[in-house]
């Protein structure tokens, strides 16, 4: 056990984490060079395409240092703020962390946050300065920043270029010499292992990703979980990540690997739970994870109503290795049966939607994202409302509170103007502005979260030509003038289009949505008035004029078949639409209101 090193990598997006991981695997001979695929650990298509890491992925490497063989377990972690919880999970399974810092950009806010998390978890942190091959690299400045902002000595920091493969062995050596070997609390016979992730396999059932803290587990062991007491499972396979799953005889204290035990019910395993021997359980479970609370909610409905159960299955499976995803059944008059889902942030939401569509081949209709509001009723009760349709009638509401975030925008000084303008537009309250260095400014604002989830990031990127980055954390709730904005189609309310919005914004939003819907709803048999209303008050109105095209039909003489085919095609198109009262609304119409340019 003294020859095992468990470590993770902390880095900001784009600072080269995945590339460094690739390099480490290549240098330890884990992957032959010819099999190297860029960003090997980002196994999901979405991860590779977007160049981001979403899921943590473990891998085991063998390395010889001064004649002694070592096992290095790397648990890759995501860098985006939305996936913070994933980071905390991998930290709990490690003794050390590589802190990768871009030599030209220095320490970013997100890196800092994760770094503090690592320090809290008593991890040994090894700074690594990456991208030293870039002309803009300023190694001394990067070192100084690490020492100043984090208080870590950067003197011995390996200086590398993961892209060019420079000085990679320095990193490996540092891992062996500086990351402590796993330690156990004395001699323990009974198994104590942390579940840090899960996957579902159609043949093997749930695959548990685990770090063994004490004892051992092998095929035939009887295990049980702390939280799902009573249920016992026979272990059918144990293995390591090399980097793909490879069965081994047994996993013992200090190891990182996977365990299969014919667990068919997804809810029987919970990330953060402790596995132990069924016959001889340990007394105390390991400290689990902090429960993560979703911040952004939206309705997800199958485009084809009959796919409800498929969607349910898919969500269940995603939930298995994404503890932060929450969902509960929802029903909409317009969209039928679906789910109200909770996410950590917008990116998380997008990723889940994309995974549902790609990995499970589902066509989805999603509703506008919402945050969770505190609604104080006249009865003196407080309700948490994340779904506009669940909002009590206006007469029952005393007042409402909305979540506020502390938002930090980093950008070059020349974009300070546009950024502040945007934050102001988004009802932001200016906190302060500091120069991180001559090239970068950090602008702090308190902004209502519901403004952030509504087009903030895209607008920020476009107004700063992509130079600005955004971090935010929830600060608390403040009282707000909030109203429910409803959309009426031909006089019928379409529940799936309702949103909760600040009163001042309601007029503009109502007008924008009405305009979008006007373009997205095809002309039909009759004129369709589109109205945006607050209570009984109409605040915007558009009209989809009635169709007028059928008088222009071509005569096909005696060829009836062609005419029939045309009608059938038209009928098919209609079937794919949703009925809101007498109006047919295509799925795209619901989606079109999600992206509104300002």
């Amino acid at each position: 056990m003294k020859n095992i090193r468990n470590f993770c990598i902390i880095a900001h997006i784009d600072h080269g984490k995945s590339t460094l991981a690739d390099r480490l695997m290549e240098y330890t001979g884990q992957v032959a060079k010819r099999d190297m695929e860029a960003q090997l650990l980002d196994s999901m298509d979405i991860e590779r395409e977007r160049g981001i890491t979403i899921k943590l992925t473990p891998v085991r490497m063998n390395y010889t240092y001064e004649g002694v063989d070592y096992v290095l377990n790397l648990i890759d972690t995501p860098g985006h703020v939305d996936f913070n919880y994933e980071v905390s999970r991998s930290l709990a399974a490690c003794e050390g962390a590589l802190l990768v810092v871009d030599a030209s950009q220095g320490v970013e806010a997100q890196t800092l946050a994760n770094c503090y998390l690592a320090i809290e978890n008593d991890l040994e942190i090894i700074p690594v300065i990456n991208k030293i091959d870039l002309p803009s690299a300023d190694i001394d400045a990067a070192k100084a920043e690490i020492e100043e902002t984090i208080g870590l000595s950067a003197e011995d920091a390996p200086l590398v270029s993961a892209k060019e493969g420079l000085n990679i062995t320095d990193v490996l050596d540092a891992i062996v010499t500086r990351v402590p070997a796993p330690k156990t609390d004395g001699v323990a016979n009974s198994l104590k292992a942390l579940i840090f992730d899960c996957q579902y396999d159609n043949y093997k059932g749930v695959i548990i990703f685990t770090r063994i803290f004490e004892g051992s587990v092998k095929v035939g062991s009887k295990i049980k979980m702390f939280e799902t007491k009573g249920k016992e499972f026979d272990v059918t396979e144990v293995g390591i990540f090399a980097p793909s799953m490879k069965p081994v005889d047994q996993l013992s204290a200090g190891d990182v690997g996977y365990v299969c035990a014919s667990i068919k019910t997804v809810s029987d395993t919970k990330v953060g739970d402790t596995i132990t021997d069924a016959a001889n359980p340990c007394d105390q479970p390991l400290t689990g994870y902090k429960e993560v609370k979703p911040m952004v909610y939206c309705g997800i409905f199958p485009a084809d109503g009959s796919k409800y159960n498929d969607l349910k299955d898919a969500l269940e499976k995603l939930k298995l290795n994404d503890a932060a995803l929450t969902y509960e059944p929802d029903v909409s008059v317009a969209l039928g049966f679906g789910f109200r889902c909770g996410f950590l942030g917008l990116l998380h939401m997008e990723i889940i939607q994309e995974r549902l569509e790609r990995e499970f081949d589902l066509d989805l209709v999603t509703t506008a994202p919402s945050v969770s509001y505190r609604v104080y009723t006249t009865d003196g009760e407080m309700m948490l409302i994340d779904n506009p349709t669940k909002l009590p009638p206006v007469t029952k509401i005393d007042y409402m509170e909305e979540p506020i975030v502390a938002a930090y925008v980093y950008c070059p000084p020349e974009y300070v103007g546009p950024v502040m303008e945007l934050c102001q537009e988004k009802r932001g309250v200016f906190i302060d502005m500091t120069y991180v260095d001559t090239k970068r400014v950090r602008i702090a604002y308190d902004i209502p979260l519901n403004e952030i989830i509504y087009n903030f990031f895209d607008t920020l990127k476009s107004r700063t030509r992509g130079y600005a980055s955004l971090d935010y954390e929830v600060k608390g709730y403040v009282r707000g003038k909030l109203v429910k904005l409803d959309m009426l189609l031909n006089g019928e309310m379409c529940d799936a289009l309702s949103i909760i919005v600040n009163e001042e914004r309601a007029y503009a939003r109502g007008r924008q949505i009405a305009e979008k819907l006007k373009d997205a709803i095809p002309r039909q048999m009759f004129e369709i008035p589109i109205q945006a209303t607050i209570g009984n008050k109409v605040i915007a109105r558009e009209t989809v004029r009635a169709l007028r095209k059928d008088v222009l039909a071509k005569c096909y003489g005696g060829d009836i078949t062609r005419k029939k085919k045309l009608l059938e095609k038209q009928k098919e198109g209609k079937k794919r639409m949703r009925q809101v009262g007498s109006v047919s609304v295509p799925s795209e119409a619901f989606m079109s209101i999600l992206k509104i340019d300002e």
Partner: protein
Amino acid sequence: MATKTLKNFQRNTAIYVHFPFCKQRCKYCTFLSCCNYNLADSYFDALCKELVQNARKDVVITSIFFGGGTPSSVDAKHLQMVFDAIYNNYSVAPNCEVTVECNPESVTQQKVDLFVKNGVNRVSIGLQSANDNTLKAIGRLHNYQQFLDAVNLFVNAGLTNINADLIIGLPESATDFENTLNKVVNLPLTHLSVYALEVYPNSQLDQEIKQGKLAVNQDADYLANLYDVALEKLSKHGYNRYEVSNFAKQGKECRHNLAYWRCQSYFGFGASAHGYMDGIRTENASDISQYVNLINTQGSAVVDSNLIDVAEQMDEYVMLGLRLQRGISVTEFYNRFNCNLEDVYPNVGKLIYLKMLQKREDYFTKEDYISVRPDKFYVLNEILTEIL
């Protein structure tokens, strides 16, 4: 019951004969037509064979339609062969409507005489536009004066049923279209067909538009506005819109087209012709050589045939019947299919409620009719997708 039904609607049968020859192809056309008149001898031989082989005396022919192509451009001897083959082999009713499609430039005194001699009592002339520049641009071989001359020849020969075809949305201005209307309403015509221009992919028109040589406005609202202009102007001059695209003076409705819309049976002879006999819809080979070959070797040129089951028959009846201003007779539907229209199509009631359809009793026949409201013909297809 079934046989009775069949007999009922086969009693009045139409004959369509296709003449796939044109002196020059119009740029927008997708109908089967060919400019090589050398194929005519073998084609009309085959056509007459087909006419003879399908001869039936148990049905009464109430309308005959020579379509194309340009039937009037075909040699007199070929036309005569076809007339003879029909009259010698079919029971043609004494008052049968006999229509020949003509292009103005091919209408001569000789042809007119031939037509009249053979019982032609209705002609359909392709005018498309009264604007000579437009006619040139779309590849027509005639000008407006030639059209007037043709009309005169027919009128002088005693024809009292003359149709002109017009096209909405040609490469011309809205004013040009109005001018055309203003001119034709004062002519001794009795019927007008008004269709919208359709630009088919890869047609010559399509290519010339893409090359920027021609410009057409295909906006549905623009076209609908032009249609409205036509509707208003023609109504003022005694034309009744008895079908979505067809306008007729009283009693001059085209019986042949009505046969299609009322799901009556019809023979389809010639290349690419469609027929509907004994409940079977058929389609002939659409290539002239293939057609000739099939007739000569197999005795039939049918390349596709479908038995229309009762459910389909009902759908067709509704789909085609609602194109008519009169709509569908609830009584006739019952007599034909032995069930109630509104039981089969429950949405009819809803559409009446939504003021898309209307139900009224015919003053003379006392039959109930379901029809599309006059101002809802714009959404006919939408209405149909709701019903079917």
